[in-house]
């Protein structure tokens, strides 16, 4: 089976003021995502994981390298092509408080991508009920405004917007990091359910290793603009080969006082060994 998305040797440098170059954010990243697969992308703040997601979506412009989607090079796709690609790839952002326009009703937010792809407004509005149902929101949510919903509910709306066009790839940029613990688990299950029923692929960006274990088939670990390790989720999280991955795994506190003490000691041992 051929890959849905391939990224080859991607470099990205944000332009600084004037003629000087800014720091290089991505330093030669290569990865691939198969249809129906979740690739977890783990890394700390500033590692470039969000920038990589934005480059795939066309929100950031790479300096070199290739992004290939279904065999088509979309690294520097035209605006027109990008608008058409909205049918193929979508996004769920981290912060459900700023990713929904506060001035629009939920029905407008959900109908918007459909209308943008040429659907009649009346027809798009009819689809809204079905979308709300898919993400477990009641139909009367359509006439409300984002501020009337909790964080978890808003994130459901954002997910409904992402699946409205039945895309093949959804970039999930820390979709559960801003949510409460109990909401987190429910939203993750919703994403997995949607994947099983629609066969959509996820590029799942997160800093939380327990979330990655829960949703990913494969994991890529990013550190300072480079991928240090990629592999099946069980291999990477049980037998990490790179020191940074090991450090990351031991740093995450576990919710068990005794196991956490062991982990703490292991981390300190690793620290002194270095």
């Amino acid at each position, binding site marked *: 089976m051929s890959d849905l998305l391939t990224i080859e040797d991607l470099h990205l440098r944000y332009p600084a003021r004037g003629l000087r170059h800014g720091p290089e954010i991505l330093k030669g990243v290569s990865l691939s995502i*198969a*249809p*129906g697969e979740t690739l977890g992308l783990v890394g700390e703040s500033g590692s470039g994981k969000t920038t990589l997601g934005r480059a795939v979506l066309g*929100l950031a412009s790479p300096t070199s390298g290739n992004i290939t989607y279904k065999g088509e090079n979309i690294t520097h796709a035209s605006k027109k092509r990008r*608008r058409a690609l909205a*049918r193929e790839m*979508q*996004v769920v*952002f981290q912060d459900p*408080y*700023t*990713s929904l*326009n506060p*001035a629009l009703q939920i029905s407008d937010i959900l109908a*918007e*991508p459909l209308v943008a*792809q040429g659907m009649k407004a009346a027809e798009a509005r009819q689809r809204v009920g079905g979308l709300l149902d898919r993400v*477990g*929101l*009641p139909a009367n949510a359509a*006439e409300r405004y984002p*501020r*009337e919903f*909790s*964080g*978890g*509910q808003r994130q*459901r709306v*954002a997910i409904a*917007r992402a699946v409205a*066009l039945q895309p093949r790839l959804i970039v999930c940029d820390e979709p559960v990091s801003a949510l*409460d*613990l*109990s909401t*987190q*688990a*429910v939203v993750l299950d919703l994403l997995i*359910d949607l994947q099983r029923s629609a*066969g959509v*692929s996820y590029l799942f960006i997160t*800093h939380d*290793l*327990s979330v990655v*274990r*829960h949703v990913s*088939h494969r994991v890529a670990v990013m550190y300072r603009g480079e991928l240090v390790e990629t592999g099946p*989720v*069980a291999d990477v999280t049980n037998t990490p080969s790179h020191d940074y991955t090991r450090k*990351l795994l*031991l*740093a*995450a*506190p576990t*919710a*068990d*006082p*005794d196991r*956490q003490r062991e982990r*703490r000691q292991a981390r*300190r041992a690793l620290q002194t060994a270095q």
Partner: protein
Amino acid sequence: MTTVDPQLVAQPALPARRRSGAFRRLLRRPLGVSALAALLAIVALGLLEPVLSIHDPNFADLAFANAAPGTPDWPLGGDRFGRDIWARSLAAINVSVISGLIGAGTGLVLGTVFGLISGYIGRRVDGVLSWTFNLLMTFPALVLVIVLYPVTGGTYQSMMFIFGVFLAPGIFRLVRNLVVGVRSELYVDAARVSGLSDPRILSRHVLYIIRGPIIISAAFLASAAVGVQAGLAFLGLGSNQVPSFGSMTSDAFINIYSQPVQLVWPSLFLSLLIGSLVLLGNAYRDVLAAPQGASSSSSRRRRPGEKAAAVDARMDRDDTSTPTLSAPTLSTTSPATPAGGLLRVRELRVEYPQPDDTLRAVVDGVSFDVAQGEIVGLVGESGSGKTQTAFSILGLLPPQARISANELSIAGENVIDSHRTALRKLRGSVIAYIPQEPMANLDPSFTVGSQLVEGLTSRMSRKEATATILELLARVGIPDPMRTFKSYPHEISGGMAQRALIAGAVAGRPKLLIADEPTTALDVTVQAEILDLLRDLQSEYGMGVLLVTHNFGVVADLCDRVLVMRNGVVVESGAVREIFRNPQHEYTQKLISSILDEDTVRTDLPVTAKDEG
């Protein structure tokens, strides 16, 4: 079909509370409604000119030259040529209104269109456009309008058009800066990914959000245009066949000694028109700036940065805003003698007044102790009241909060009855605080060192304080203490900033440390180091720690005891192992079962779509 959100199911009948529109709120304000009424009345007078005026505005009858007001058929009298002042005033209203519309309209259209383009596209386009409009701004608009007289032919419409062009830079800069702020909002990115075209994003997502300030400046621009048109006419520029408040004032000015009352009419109408426009703009600005009581759910869930910044500002404001603590009259226990324990809290309540004059309790009867050398975790989800509990102990709640408790004592000192100054004395020496967002709690305009030293200067000389802080900065694991001491907050990382704040917090050798989500904003590897540091410092100093967090991993790492909060109530408390191994309350059970299992990984294989579309 899929997992339904329990929160929504639990409250399906939530009434759809609409925030009333800005316009409707404007009408509820006396200033707004009277300014609008005055403006509409004047415009209506102008529109009814054909009905209301008896003579043509340029009709002159020398028999009525300088006629007194009240002369039959000449209600406001006649001017020095015997023209009807009433008819001329009505016509001049129309000229003023058209001037305002042309001037403000031109400035608004040019400024908004180019401001949107410049702010949204940015980069080179922004550079060129900003430069052009800045250049335009340097031209003296009035002089140019006069110099271009031959081009405009002196019609007031074309003069106002040119003046409007010179008004555009103000709007351009306003719109451009607003757009730059909105452009980076995630919903604009989401709209781009949704495949929306740029014009659609600009009109639907950007312009709609920033319309408020534009409407306000439009009112001011219109008043400026009206004033300038009158001024130019006063100077005699433009056709003398066009009745205008400027030319009327000019005519009356000649008669000022013989017929001073003639000056009153044009001045009165002009002041009313300009004044109502300016006041309307002001009222609209007040409406937009005022807090909107109806949207309580969104204002309650502030973003962490704002929360921390608000607290920080309050700490600087020298306690004037600290709410007075008061013991309820029912208090039976004598608060003077707490039985051991560093912190004793009994039946703590924090309430906020609601728009409908009821009180809503966010902390509802919380009781607990923190012993010396003990780390107590306060866990709960957002809105559980855990931060409110911590802040009420610190005395950092906003002034409208009503705090009451049967007992609230720190190190044997009762703070529920004590005065603000007593609480301030406790802060920094007996209680210390570590915030959630280290960056938001450092003032960007002072060096890190000077901010940390400040807290100590009441107790020691500046030199000693500096030495103490440098020593502590080294103690908290900052590699080059002197460099960090002299750095500004933006020059250090979030982890370093949190270390510096911890150094500042423990500098006063506090007995009780209150940490509000101290590692939530940090990376997981940095979090582990900060937790290590807190543990070491706690055992070194023997402090009691109240740790507010939502992260059970942090609780497991650090805490001896745990309090689980929900909706302002402690639902369960106990030793940390007990709570994790054997949670009693169903809410705790639910929370603990929500923790993602560490041992299982996803094993099902990718499913590909059976059919496309």
